[in-house]
């Protein structure tokens, strides 16, 4: 195993049991690595198993086969997981797609942001200063502390979710389609925010999306998933310049290009 890889996913498979005899293979033999301080993009259409990968990494699902090494620890083994539970829970954080359902509607923003630290320390709420700093980091001022999630817009809520994830100074952030439910203009803001935060804090970042243009802008390396398989993987530039798999080509062809002339040509080709 390479020394500088933080997360190492090896031959990961996961099946869902539908009825007695029916099973669906959501992910099938997926392997990839994320290095320290790297942004890794995972793209694919809905139902291709991206979220399942993310949830396996976060120990929400237990994979049927394969192993995930985080800092060299095989986290899918119950024993190892229990031994390192606290470290794992603090250094990995997740950001969900739907900010409306990922924030408890009955908690104030300050409580939401403070939640991980509170669970971690086991004591009461951390100081207001701390929370204020976290909120500032994601571009929200202190006036939001007393508000409830329903008073915020989608983009603001997602910022709160990011602030919550960052509050424990994590080393790996898994973001499951964090921008998919936002407007395009807000999406760009969020991606810029991710980029800025990643530069400042240096965490590794697994970015899951189905929007290729954002991935191209943000990620160092990219994997393409199709029907539960990782069909292509490599540096983002290489993939976008020379896609090898048919599916990647099709995906790329579907990306709108902000130039009407090229866009029109593309239409004729297909």
């Amino acid at each position, binding site marked *: 195993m390479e020394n500088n890889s933080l997360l190492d996913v090896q031959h990961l498979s996961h099946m869902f049991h539908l009825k007695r005899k029916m099973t669906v293979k959501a992910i099938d033999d997926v392997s990839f690595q994320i290095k320290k301080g790297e942004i890794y993009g995972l793209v694919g259409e809905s139902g291709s198993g991206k979220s399942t990968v993310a949830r396996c990494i976060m120990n929400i699902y237990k994979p049927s086969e394969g192993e995930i090494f985080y800092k060299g620890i095989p986290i899918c083994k119950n024993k190892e997981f229990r031994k390192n*539970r606290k470290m794992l829970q603090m250094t990995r954080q997740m950001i969900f797609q739907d900010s409306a359902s990922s924030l408890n509607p009955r908690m104030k923003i300050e409580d939401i942001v403070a939640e991980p630290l509170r669970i971690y320390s086991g004591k009461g709420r951390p100081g207001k200063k701390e929370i204020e700093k976290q909120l500032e980091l994601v571009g929200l001022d202190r006036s939001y502390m007393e508000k409830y999630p329903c008073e915020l817009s989608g983009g603001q809520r997602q910022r709160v979710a990011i602030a919550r994830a960052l509050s424990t100074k994590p080393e790996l952030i898994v973001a499951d389609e964090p921008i998919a439910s936002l407007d395009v203009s807000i999406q760009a803001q969020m991606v810029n925010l991710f980029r800025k935060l990643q530069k400042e804090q240096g965490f590794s970042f697994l970015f899951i999306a189905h929007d290729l243009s954002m991935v191209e802008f943000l990620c160092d390396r990219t994997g393409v998933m199709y029907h539960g398989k990782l069909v292509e993987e490599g540096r983002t530039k290489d993939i976008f310049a020379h896609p090898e798999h048919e599916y990647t080509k099709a995906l790329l062809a579907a990306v709108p290009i902000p130039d009407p002339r090229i866009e029109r040509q593309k239409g004729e080709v297909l």
Partner: protein
Amino acid sequence: MSDLFEMVGVKPELAEQQVPEKENRWYDTIPWLSVIILILIVGGCLFCNRIMTKDPSYMDLKNYTIAPCKEFLFGTDTMGRDIFSMIWYGGRQSLFIGIAATVISTGIAIIFGTVSGMAPEWLDMLLMRATEILLSIPNLLTVIFLQAILGKANVFSLSFVIGITSWMSIAKIIRTEVRQLRNNEYVIAARCMGGGFFYILYKHLAPNFLSSIMFMVVMNIRSAIVEESTLSFIGIGLPLEVISWGSMLSLSEKALLTGAWWIILIPGVFLVVTLLCITSIGDCIRKKLNKQESNL
């Protein structure tokens, strides 16, 4: 610009005709009469020392089965005790049992419902089947059975027995709510952060399902009070010496023979009025809840 818009929009004279809906303030929906009566009864029971004219447990053997008069406002029972004093003193026991039993059953229901809601499919199935079976056994039978095992009843054992036999329907509601809530990503997020079962229950689940069980909880107080009085009446609840509305009524068989209506009617009326007040408050809670849901 505004002129143009008004021409195609709703005509102003039509709009004015619409009667503005009477605004309901929060206090309009509360059944004040019930609340006030309930406060009076509860207050009377709490401060019974001030109200009582006689010692409720003193047996005045000279004046037994006396109809209501000036000295004995509500008359005396077949053992010569003053009913007026007993009502307030005994109300304490009845109300205490109602509340204590409800606290116990709600506690069990919350734990059981949440466990079942968060559990994997097969365990959930098993737990819910068990609940349904328990639910279908007539409550009274289980209580009689348990009471027979525990032996002679006192206020606490009776609350306990009533509590552990009446949690099932609340647990079922909680389980359904939790099943929906647990799909929310904030619950998953809290689990990822390492929040334990009780942390998630306290912080994320309970605040979200409490409103939907409030009605059931209030109704549970009611049924617990009914059950206490029924059991005491049959003779397996509180014994005669422990004064409660139920045990007061257990003298009624003797009262029937002598035609002493006050022994039967007066404690019963207090019982029924209390239950009615609780019911109307519960109904008010339910209506509020329905309103909230339909607004969403």
